[in-house]
Structures are given as structure tokens and as C-alpha cells.
């Protein structure tokens, strides 16, 4: 068991150990400690840190570094990530690679400082203009976030795609015991620019959008087939299956344990990749399941859409109801989830789909 570490600091150190060569960003609560930590730490390991004038500039600095084939990073939160969408779309379009950390906070517009999961739709759908997706990793603990940091770059580089590490305000701000990974010294990617025009495909000028569209679909299909990650339990005999990711996913595990002890046949799926969505997990579910229930830290329910789609795709012979338990502000407690199940069983909460 490692030392107690604050989430944002542990994630930032994991990025250093994954061989990040440039961080550029702009402060925003609750992500700022990542930036503050790296301002000292990256120069110590001979890497670049830039306090950009804006989120827009920050992501474009990341784009410049990424075009040279090195590991580049930025981190922000809700409104800051909104500003970065132009750059993320462009980085995706050029098939460059980087990691973007979103320490999600609640709210539209300027938002609030409360921990939340309200950016689910944006992160899992691409967010900016165009036909693209980002691989989205949604850890449920500080240890898992730290362990996924090198994976985030490996996936980004394997598929030439942007990987989003979607954490939550609470995960960034809380402390847990944490073992840090070993240092990696990644090699410069062969297609990265070196001034010698040794790799000719970067840039819009030599491209054929029609063939690229076909290739992009193939790439997305390959990612969907090979990179679904999740944790599950109790699916085989479950009457009800909870689906929740991140910190709510962790809380739901506790609720399922208690409900099982009380005689309820319930199970859970905790997506670790929220894109690609772990639809394969649904194939393990009891065919007579009575309902899927998303448990989410937001106001309107967003994960529920993917849950309902996954239910439709895997249980084809009938329409399994999909319920939503959205919890504004904070992490849905074990009690909240248990009470939610009771309301669903007694008909107080109707299905969303």
C-alpha cells in the first residue's frame, strides 16, 4: 500500500512517469493542482511546462508538441474543456495523439465547483465539430487513474487518437493510498515531424477525405471491438443491473453488496472506458433481467442513453426498461442507490426508455 496522495497530484506524477514532454494549460478549479505540480516537476525531468494565456492556446500548444511525436498533456475542467474543443477536433482530424484530463465539475456555462459527471455526453461523443471520437477513460479510484495514465498514451498512440482521462472533482481533490508506476522513456513517434519531411502525411494538403472517412470508421470499429474495459459483478442472475462509472461506480459496488446481503438479486457494470462503451459486459447479463439502472452524478441523466442502447443491442427479444437515478452535486451514496431501487420496484420511478 503506497503513500496517501491527493488525486490530482498522483495523476500528475503518473503523467511525468509516463514520459510527458510538454504540459500546456490554464488554471481552473478543480483541476489546477495538476498544472501547479507539473510547473515544478516537468522542468526537473527536462520536459516543458507552459502556462498558456488561455485554454485555447494551451490545447494548440499541445497540438504543436503532438505534431512532433512526443507525449503532450493538458488538463482542465468543464468550461475550460469547452474552449479546448476546437483544438481537440483539429488534433483528432490530423490523427495526432495526446491526453486531455477533464476533472469534471458540475454545471452549464461557467458551472460550479462541485464534483460531477455532467460532461459525459460531450466527452464520449467527440465534443467538437466533425466525425470523431476520443477514447475516454473513467477511473473509479486514484490508484486506477494512476495506473491508466500510461495506458492512456499507449491507446492514443496505438490508434492515433486523443485519449480523455475523465475524472471527477472529488477524485481530484480527495486523498487515497496510491502506488506510483515506474518511469517510462517513450520513443519519439516515427511519424512526428522532425524538420526533414521524413513523414509526409501530416497536414490537410495531401489528403483524401473520402478514403479517410472509410478508414476512420474502421478505426472506430477496431477500438470498439478491442478496447472495451469494465468491472462487473452479479450479472448472471440479476433482476436489476446498475450501471455507473467513476466514483458513483465505486459507490454502487457497495450498494450492490448490501442489497445482495438483503436478498435482492442485483448486479453492476462499472464502465472503465466510457468510449468505447463496454457493451460486451451486457452480454453476460441474465436474459430475464427486469431492468437496467444508471446511477449518475448529474442532473438530467446522460449515461442512461448508452445504457438503453446497450440493452437494446444485447437483449434483442424484448424491450428491457432502462431507469435513471441522477444525483445532482456530489457522489450518489449507497443509501441513495438502495432507495432508488426501492422506488423503481414500487413504481415510483418510471423507466426512461
Amino acid at each position, binding site marked *: 500500500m503506497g503513500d496517501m496522495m491527493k488525486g490530482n497530484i498522483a495523476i500528475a506524477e503518473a503523467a511525468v512517469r509516463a514520459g510527458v514532454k*510538454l504540459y500546456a494549460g490554464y488554471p481552473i478549479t478543480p483541476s489546477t493542482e495538476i498544472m501547479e505540480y507539473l510547473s515544478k516537476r516537468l522542468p526537473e525531468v527536462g520536459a516543458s511546462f507552459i502556462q498558456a494565456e488561455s485554454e485555447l492556446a494551451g490545447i*494548440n*500548444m499541445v497540438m504543436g508538441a503532438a505534431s512532433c511525436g512526443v507525449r503532450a498533456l493538458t488538463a482542465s475542467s468543464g468550461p475550460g474543456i469547452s474552449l479546448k474543443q*476546437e*483544438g481537440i477536433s483539429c488534433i483528432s482530424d490530423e490523427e495526432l495523439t495526446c491526453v486531455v484530463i477533464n476533472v469534471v465539475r458540475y454545471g452549464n456555462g461557467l458551472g460550479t465547483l462541485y464534483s460531477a459527471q455532467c460532461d459525459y455526453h460531450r466527452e464520449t461523443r467527440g465534443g467538437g465539430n466533425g466525425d470523431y471520437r476520443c477514447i475516454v477513460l473513467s477511473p473509479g479510484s486514484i490508484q486506477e487513474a494512476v495506473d491508466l495514465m500510461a495506458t492512456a498514451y499507449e491507446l492514443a498512440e496505438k490508434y492515433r487518437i486523443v485519449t480523455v482521462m475523465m475524472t471527477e472533482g472529488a477524485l481530484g481533490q480527495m486523498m487515497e493510498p496510491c502506488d506510483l508506476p515506474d518511469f517510462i522513456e517513450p520513443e519519439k513517434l516515427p511519424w512526428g515531424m522532425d*524538420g526533414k*519531411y521524413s513523414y509526409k502525411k501530416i*497536414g490537410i*494538403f495531401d489528403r483524401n477525405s473520402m478514403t479517410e472517412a472509410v478508414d476512420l470508421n474502421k478505426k472506430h470499429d477496431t477500438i470498439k471491438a478491442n478496447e472495451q474495459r469494465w468491472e462487473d459483478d452479479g450479472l448472471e442472475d440479476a433482476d436489476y443491473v446498475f450501471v455507473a462509472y467513476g466514483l458513483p461506480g465505486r459507490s454502487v459496488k457497495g450498494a450492490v453488496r448490501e442489497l445482495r446481503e438483503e436478498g435482492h438479486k442485483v448486479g453492476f457494470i462499472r464502465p472503465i472506458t466510457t468510449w468505447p462503451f463496454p457493451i460486451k459486459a451486457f452480454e453476460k447479463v441474465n436474459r430475464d433481467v427486469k431492468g437496467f439502472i444508471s446511477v449518475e452524478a448529474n442532473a438530467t441523466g446522460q449515461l442512461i442513453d448508452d445504457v438503453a442502447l446497450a440493452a437494446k443491442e444485447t437483449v434483442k427479444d424484448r424491450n428491457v426498461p432502462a431507469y435513471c437515478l441522477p444525483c445532482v452535486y456530489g457522489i450518489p451514496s449507497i443509501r441513495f442507490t438502495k432507495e432508488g431501487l426501492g422506488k423503481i420496484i414500487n413504481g415510483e420511478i418510471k423507466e426512461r426508455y
Partner: protein
Amino acid sequence: MAKARKVPAIIDNPMSFCPGCGHGIVIRLIAECLEELGQDQNIIFALGVGCSSLLGGGLVTDRLHCPHGRAGAVATGMKRVQPENTIVAYQGDGDAYSIGIAESINAAYRNENFTVITINNTNYGMTGGQMSWTTMPGQVTTTSPLGRDCETTGLPLRFPELVASQFDVAYAARGAVTTPKNVKKLKKYIWNGLDAQVKGEGYSVIEVLSPCPTNWKMTPLKAMERIETELIPYYPLGEFKARKEN
């Protein structure tokens, strides 16, 4: 007999600029300077949006098409991770001074060690001639149909003078493509800007007054005349921040 200059090796395919446009001259000068400085196999371009992006099709070099106005930030990222490469941000006035003024100003503010070449043709060329921050007072564009009214739109921006007077940059100059004499001077400015970067002196910017006959609705010759008679008096040519003695 004078020897004809060979076309620099990094210029390959024909570029699709309008007849009478100044971009081609500037690109040729940049390529010649890069060759003379031994940097033509060590160059990455951060290309702006608009007509500047047409440059990409004609060059056999590393180059990245940057989002609207962001070349200053993209070039910053490139240079920070690969300081041994020569980095050129190539932009138009709409890109660098209107939508990208924050990125341009802040790159100069930080004295980033790369070179910016800005083509100032006093309008947005590729989108069909809208007003930019360098459009002249009274100039008719598609978004200032009655002529630019500086009471409501501000005064034309003089970027090289701004950064030369306010920031600790290595080099700032303005040239024009109107006459052989001016072209020769412009080449010296570009050479200075690139050499300053190679020697690690910091940020350099060279603005180029360049004709846009298509959107100015003038013949190429009239467009050149306009630069001489109308633009140069407002946008003086020369070096605003000379290099320190080497």
C-alpha cells in the same frame, strides 16, 4: 552574365494563389533564406488559416495547418519540444491580428524563439475580402460596404511596432513586395528574422505588405500602386526592433 537562381528545393508543386497575389514572392524569399541559412532540411511550418494555408500544397517540408488564429500557440508547442528545429508561423493579417491576436501577442510577450511571417493585405483574402484589423480607414470590404469607419471599428493595427515597443522581442520589421528594391530589403528582413531564431535570440516577426488584386478589385499593377501610395504611409517599412550586435 548573371546566373539565374535555381528554385529552392523545398518549393515543389504549383500553388493556387490568385494572379497578382504577393504570397508567392514571400514564399520564394523564405525558401531562399532557409537554404542560405542551411535550415531547409530542418524546418517546420505552422500554417495559418486562409490564403496562407495554400502554401502547404506547394512545399515539400514538414508543416501543420493550425486552427484559425492559433499558429502562435502551435508554433510555441513545436519549438518547446524541438528547439533544434527552425519553426516558422506563416499567417495572414486576419489570422494573426484579428482572430489570433491573443496567440500572436502572447507568443511575442513570452519571446518565443520562432519566426512569424505575416502577410498583410488589409483584408480576409480567402473568405472573400472582409474587413480585418489592418483594413485602411474608408476601405470598402464586404463587411465595411460603406468604407471602414474607424469610429466604430478601431484603427488599423500596427503589430510589429506594437511588439517592438512593448515587448522584449529579438526582431521586428515590415517589408513590401512592390518593387525589386523592396523585395531585396524584405529578403534581408526575413533572413534576419530566421537567423535570429537560429542563433536563439528569441521571437522575430516580419510583416509583409502584399497585394490582393482579387478582393481589392484592382489590376495587379494598380494593387501594387495602392501599397506604395496608401499603405506604406500608414504602415512604414523598415526594422522596428533591430538585432543586437552579434
